[in-house]
């Protein structure tokens, strides 16, 4: 089924129910449906055709939800871009996907103006939620919603592209991940089945809607007729937790850096979490020490440790009943899909052997927009069956029951003195040290070792010293895995989607 039809169906069943909560604004399913019809009609009238790209450059707000469904109703492809993106990267994306329209909020308008100035050949229609002096010809979002009537193009089908989401490649330019309506339909059905989502759920989304994991919350919530509470960020944890309590939130998707922030709070009241059924964690591995502390703090909340990437939305989930037993594992393939750990030739390796995780199923991407080379690299046939599989570039090992455990990004391996070190292994040891809130381990050029390990640490107390850290590491790790240098930081570099970024920490790129 096409994604906008999930909204149509939920609107038939729950027209008056609140679909989106955004601050004081509550948007019903009927309003979400009508507003997206209006904007879809405007897009169609202004030359946006089936298959055209529409850049969505806006933070978490009800308007952004409207834009997604409007773009799909118009038969176009949504290209969400994180609102903190700088003009240079936005200009690259505009030049790459040549959008027919751009929708931006107040924060993004100046960046859009800069990015368009760098792309004189691009002439997209621009819609702004608030006027900006540098974009005088832009249409007003609120007025666009009044356009009508809207009529659906009967030619639209499930195999049309729904989204192109640009991700940071480990090297070079961002790559646009193409997902069809059928891919997203399959992924959301699978996720809903294992999380047990239903119309009584209230899901809190502080993750950017421009990020696969954040967008998935909107898509699953609308699909089951639930309520989505949008928050712009986790910047004010105490305020967000209060909001969670007031709205009776049942599901709270998080990333490990948010969990670190949560565990850092001095006086956390478990009563705020009374109505919460589950927390999910994805986007980066959750340190085992944090899993244990979160479980101790919130024993009645189901904790889902998951793994995914934009290229397949989600690949694995660990059933929450297993988390105390195998806290380091990210579990098994999501329902209706398959995973394997393979060697360089693509053949499955024995349990316990480290290899690359490959994913197959109806949820894997079509490829990278305008980038056949990268597509061929990521989507390769199974040498036995010819089935096209997604190569994740992430190293895992499987146990005898098929549960997989993340080891490292393929290209994160640091070679020091001839030894191969997965930085995550050292970070995991660092997290076991009391007072370590966040940690990243990077390789520094070293004349003798090739690369030497540097630990970058955010500490909760000034009393933690480099000597403490090194002593602890020497106790926990092989000699060659003990960092040569310890740096205490106020904060660690994160990507636009909030993941701790080893690449940025080692000076290998700019924030996307």
């Amino acid at each position, binding site marked *: 089924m096409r994604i906008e039809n999930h909204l149509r169906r939920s609107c038939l069943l729950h027209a008056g129910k609140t679909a989106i909560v955004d601050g004081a604004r509550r948007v019903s399913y009927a309003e979400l449906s009508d507003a997206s019809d209006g904007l879809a009609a405007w897009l169609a009238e202004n030359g946006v055709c089936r298959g055209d790209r529409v850049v969505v450059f806006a933070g978490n707000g009800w308007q952004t939800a409207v834009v997604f469904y409007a773009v799909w109703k118009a038969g176009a492809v949504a290209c969400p871009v994180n609102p903190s993106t700088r003009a240079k990267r936005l200009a690259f994306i505009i030049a790459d996907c040549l959008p027919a329209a751009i929708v931006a909020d107040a924060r993004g308008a100046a960046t859009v103006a800069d990015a368009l100035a760098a792309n004189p050949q691009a002439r997209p229609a621009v819609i702004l939620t608030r006027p*900006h002096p540098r974009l005088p010809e832009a249409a007003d979002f609120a007025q666009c919603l009044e356009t009508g009537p809207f009529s659906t193009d009967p030619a639209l089908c499930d195999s049309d592209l729904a989204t192109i989401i640009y991700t940071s490649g480990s090297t070079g330019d961002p790559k646009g991940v193409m997902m069809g309506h059928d891919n997203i339909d399959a992924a959301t059905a699978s996720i809903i089945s294992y999380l047990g989502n239903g119309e009584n759920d209230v899901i809190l989304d502080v993750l950017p809607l421009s990020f696969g994991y954040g967008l998935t919350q909107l898509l699953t919530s609308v699909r089951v007729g639930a309520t989505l509470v949008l928050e712009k*960020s986790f910047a004010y944890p105490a305020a967000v937790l209060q909001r969670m309590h007031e709205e009776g939130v049942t599901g709270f998707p998080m990333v490990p850096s948010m969990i670190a922030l949560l565990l850092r709070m*001095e006086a956390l009241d478990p009563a705020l979490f009374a109505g919460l059924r589950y927390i999910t964690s994805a986007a980066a591995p959750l340190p085992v020490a944090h899993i244990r502390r979160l479980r101790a703090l919130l024993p009645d909340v189901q904790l889902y440790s998951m793994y995914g990437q934009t290229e397949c939305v989600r690949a694995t989930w660990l059933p929450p009943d297993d988390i105390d037993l195998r806290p380091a594992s990210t579990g098994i393939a999501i329902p209706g899909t398959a995973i394997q750990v393979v060697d360089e030739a693509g053949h499955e390796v024995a349990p316990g052997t480290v290899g690359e995780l490959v994913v197959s199923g109806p949820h894997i991407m079509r490829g990278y927009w305008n980038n056949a080379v990268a597509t061929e690299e990521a989507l390769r046939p199974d040498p036995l069956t010819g089935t096209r599989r997604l190569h994740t570039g992430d190293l895992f090992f499987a146990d005898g029951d098929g549960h997989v455990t993340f080891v490292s990004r393929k290209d994160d391996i640091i070679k020091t003195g001839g030894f191969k070190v997965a930085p995550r292994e050292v970070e995991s040891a660092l997290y076991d040290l009391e007072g370590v809130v966040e940690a990243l381990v990077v390789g520094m050029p070293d004349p003798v070792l090739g690369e030497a390990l540097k630990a970058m640490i955010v500490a909760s107390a000034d009393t933690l010293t480099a000597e403490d850290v090194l002593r602890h590491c020497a106790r926990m790790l092989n000699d060659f895995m003990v960092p040569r240098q310890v740096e205490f930081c106020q904060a660690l570099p994160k990507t636009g989607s909030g993941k701790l970024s080893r690449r940025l920490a080692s000076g290998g790129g700019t924030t996307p």
Partner: protein
Amino acid sequence: MSDAVQMKIRDFIIENFLFGDDSQPLPGDLSLMENDLVDSTGILELVSFLEEGFGLKVADADIVPANLDSIDRIAAFIERKKAA
């Protein structure tokens, strides 16, 4: 409260959250979150700026919109902290 404090906060916000774009008016009561001027990293940057630039100690419980979500609120927060 002093205009100098307000100015220092305003300059910080324009430089760090608007990337130097001072083409839009930035009234003292404008909500920084509602207008997408700061995100979670931004708040941590703002807290560091207050600690380093004004010599304050900001506790977890202080990091709420009532204290930090507009230039006026930040200025009033600095004043309260300094008085305490």
